[in-house]
């Protein structure tokens, strides 16, 4: 059998599509195989309740690399990012913290809690910007192969040079961020609970850590790495939900000549003499290619697709201990009209906050207790909820006058100690609604439909083993040269012609396109076509 493609990409999530687009752009003949009926993976928009488009899983865009947007001409292919102006964090005691795009409005609102905190906020943001700027290097470079130590000298030397030139204060803050808890880290600047809690939540998203857990500061840092069009730490909604990002990527890839096949689940690889020659679909169709690139979790990439028997034992052991346990659920609500926030009653804010993001549960103890439930295998009796009403910014996704509210819910462990998710899904949804009712008294009256996604659903529907939204915990021992194993460098695998390009590869999860892009660079380098991008 001769090859049909230069490269086959397994999985049509945004990273698979990014990788495909770059390879096709460099002239390769590329095929993307997606098991579902639509591409996007964790970035999909689907009409679940008639007339309401849900951004089913992911909902905010910030880490999407500027290089990806530009090099793949995503704007031309329909990408539209809608700014959102503010963040409203609501505390269980009825208080709130409102941060707006207007610096003075934010200052005044913080000073309502503490003038000192309001002043520290600028200092804090500046420091985080400096760290993010320094760390960006790592977002744009493949990590060194730790297994080869000396052999990967150029990557190491580059990194060492980079670290040496880092400002000492910034380097120290960076080192702190690697292992501290978000609460301890923020303690260095802030004194009020609601401010610390509101800022700490970036350290929790998608991870099985509480604000007092060591390691949550690293997740916090990760969420500060975003930029849109070079504007640091800007968050946006995508027009049409995050499915809009996938659609633009798919169009870009196709414009460069890539083929995309949906409803095409890959069963396993075709391997001959320790080299990968292609893939076999679930229906036993064989497709041959020079290179195969998986965007799936390491468990699927290695154990399912490649097979233990074809891999070194060390690597298999590492893959088996890869932690990709989920910690969050996603509940999407169809609303008849806008919700009323109890804490905003009688305040003088204009209703601009509806166009922003909100969170429910801004208290450190509250967040920590939500985590306590989950660490013993239960979903939080009172969860933390990060939400947005995307239809305010993008009215096209709901019938006129009606709204879509997206709720990211923590914590929901992948395995429930007492029960199973299919049995508990509805009760979990009720818990979310009841929690919301404490902040939104009219929620029951305006609710016309809902979709509840648990970690079980995330695993079943888009194949993220364990349901971790980043394909693996963002933890120092699962980052950088260890993502997802210390046995390989960057994007290659021990099998010839087999590569990885998904969120479980460096630098990690989120809608960034970074793993997809860096993987493509490495592959093109390997085939002697390494000229596509600059970094």
């Amino acid at each position, binding site marked *: 059998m001769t090859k049909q493609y230069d490269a086959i990409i397994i999985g049509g999530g945004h990273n698979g599509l990014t990788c495909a687009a770059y390879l096709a752009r460099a002239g390769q003949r590329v095929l993307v195989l997606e098991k579902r009926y639509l591409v996007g993976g964790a970035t999909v928009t689907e009409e679940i309740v008639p007339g309401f488009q849900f951004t089913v899983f992911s909902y905010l865009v910030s880490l999407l690399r500027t290089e990806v947007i530009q090099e793949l001409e995503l704007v031309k292919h329909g990408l539209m990012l809608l700014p959102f102006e503010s963040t409203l964090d609501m505390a269980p005691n009825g208080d709130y913290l409102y941060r707006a795009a207007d610096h003075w409005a934010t200052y005044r609102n913080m000073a309502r809690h503490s003038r000192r905190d309001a002043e520290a906020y600028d200092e804090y943001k500046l420091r985080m910007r400096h760290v993010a700027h320094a760390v960006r290097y790592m977002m744009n470079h493949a990590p060194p192969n730790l297994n080869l130590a000396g052999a990967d000298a150029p990557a190491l030397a580059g990194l060492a040079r980079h670290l040496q030139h880092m400002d000492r204060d910034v380097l120290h803050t960076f080192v702190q961020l690697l292992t501290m808890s978000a609460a*301890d880290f923020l303690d260095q600047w802030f004194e009020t609970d609601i401010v610390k809690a509101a800022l700490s939540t970036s350290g929790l998203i998608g991870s099985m850590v509480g604000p007092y857990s060591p390691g949550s500061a690293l997740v916090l840092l990760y969420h500060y790495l975003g930029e849109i069009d070079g504007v640091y730490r800007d968050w946006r909604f995508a027009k049409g939900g995050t499915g809009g990002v996938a659609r633009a990527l798919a169009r870009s890839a196709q414009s460069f000549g890539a083929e995309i096949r949906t409803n095409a689940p890959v069963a396993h690889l075709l391997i001959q003499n320790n080299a990968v020659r292609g893939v076999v679909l679930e229906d036993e169709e064989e497709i041959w290619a020079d290179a195969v690139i998986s965007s799936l979790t390491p468990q699927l990439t290695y154990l399912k697709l490649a097979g233990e028997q074809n891999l070194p034992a060390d690597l298999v052991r590492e893959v088996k201990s890869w932690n990709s346990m989920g910690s969050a659920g996603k509940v999407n609500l169809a609303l008849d009209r806008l919700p009323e926030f109890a804490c905003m009653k009688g305040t003088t804010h204009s209703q601009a906050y509806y166009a922003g993001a909100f969170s429910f549960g801004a208290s450190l103890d509250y967040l920590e207790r939500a985590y306590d439930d989950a*660490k013993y295998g239960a979903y939080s009796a009172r969860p933390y909820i990060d939400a947005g009403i995307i239809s305010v910014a993008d009215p096209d996704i709901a019938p006129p006058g009606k709204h879509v509210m997206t709720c990211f819910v923590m914590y929901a462990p992948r395995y429930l100690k007492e029960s199973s998710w299919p049995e508990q899904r509805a009760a979990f949804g009720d818990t979310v609604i009841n929690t919301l009712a404490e902040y939104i008294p009219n929620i029951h009256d305006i609710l016309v439909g809902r979709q509840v996604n648990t970690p079980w659903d995330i695993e079943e529907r888009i194949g993220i083993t364990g349901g971790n939204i980043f394909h693996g915990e963002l933890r120092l021992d699962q980052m950088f040269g260890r993502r997802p194993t210390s046995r390989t460098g960057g994007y290659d695998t021990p099998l010839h012609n087999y590569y990885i390009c998904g969120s479980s590869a460096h630098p990690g999860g989120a809608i960034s396109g970074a793993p997809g892009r860096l993987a493509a660079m490495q592959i093109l380098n390997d085939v002697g076509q390494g000229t596509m991008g600059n970094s």
Partner: protein
Amino acid sequence: MSQYDYDAIIVGAGHNGLIVAATLAKAGQSVLLLEKQAHIGGAAQTRELFPGCHFNVGAQEAGLLRQEIVHALGLTDHGLTFMESPATHFAPQPDGRALTIWRDLAQSRASIQQFSAADAARFADFVAYLQQMSERLEPILRQRPSLDDMGRLFVEEPELVRLATIPLSEFLDNWFEGNALKGILGGLGVSGMMRGPYAQGGVFMLLYQAAQGNGGLGGGRFVQGGMGQLAQALATAARAHGAEMRTNAAVASILLEEERAIGVRLDNGQEVSAAAVFSSLDARHTFFTLVGAPNLPPSFVRRVRSLKYRGCTAQVHLALRGLPDFRGATDKTQLSGHIVLAPGLAYLERAYDAAKYGDFSPNPYLDIVIPSLLDPTLAPTGQQVMSITMQYAPYDLRGKCWDDLAEPLGDAVLAALEQIAPGVGALVNQRRVMTPLDWEREWGLTEGNIYQGEMSMEQMFAMRPTPSGEHEGSPIKKLFLCGAAAHPGGGLTGLPGWTTGQLFTQNEHA
């Protein structure tokens, strides 16, 4: 003739201060050691709390002390004798069984076998792995890395980096299945730490504790005559080389000239000058109490202010009429090391949960020793002394005070003890409860942290106690930190004092 009264003054006669005194005196320097208390030894001393009953107050376990220091200072000639217990850990379980870890690997394996054949099969590998990893760690403990070195280590020691951030529970779950064994290891990994085993960082503490394992898990090494004999041996060694020592001599402040330390003022007003001052107190006390924040750069003050302490260790000392019966014990030798109440990682984690919110759990983690079993001289004939180290007793009780809660804590500890040693309550002649507030009052340990500062990653290595490259630990010239606050940290390792002393004498001679 020098313009100073002494070449060096050392503040605090804990084991680290004593080691510095002995090292410098041995190198020919004139040395004065000042201790605020009537007793030397600091957080490792022996006291007669009740007539005839001698208790180790503070450290119980002497396994961490580096053998090299014992040899170099000739401590065995100066009266130090170690005793090793045949069993290092004995862990009674809720179902009445008990797991014993012995100094002898085969015996340990046999005990583990009763809980899990798979664990028994892996235990030797695990011990060898710990040993191998602690050997990799040791050179880093002996030489403080700079921030740049940390970058290098990050790449050169990937396995240590992994261990630094993988949650302890995940690490142990990857090795073992039995709760009893994981409980013992989990307890080691959280000792003195205000965090539970589900958190990151515990594997490092486990490694630190097991560093001197010599084949087993480490531990089970005690000092004949009580822990206080270690300080006495160090003092004898220091005096033999000409060091002077004063107790009941609290230092009130460090005297400065420009930005340089030139001596100390005692709390009775007396001033003594020296070419160098070594403080074995923690960073908060050294810099805020003795130097004074106004004498320091504001950026440094901010660093010291944001150091984390958060002590979480209490002790209950019991004078017992006789030896209690422990459930699952068949032989007295099983009780000669640490008796551990930590049946599983979830148990430990729940004990920690209470402390997060400023409370202590009715189901605490207990690490119990009965030193009189190996050394009957510590108690009147037929009686026993028992010291229970308990976690988690948070320093911050969120508005309540340890003066009111010490006795309730003692009751809770005894109730928990009763579960594994039924009838022990009736054997208690006397009891004394000590809380984090006591460590702070006695030895000036800020917030009662037993390590003079949390041993969390961001406060270790290049960052201990403040980031390298800025002031190398002290912006004041000729003032050196030499206690547990300095690299590599707390515990009876002797390393902070030893490495500070070595470095100083080498530089002086150079």
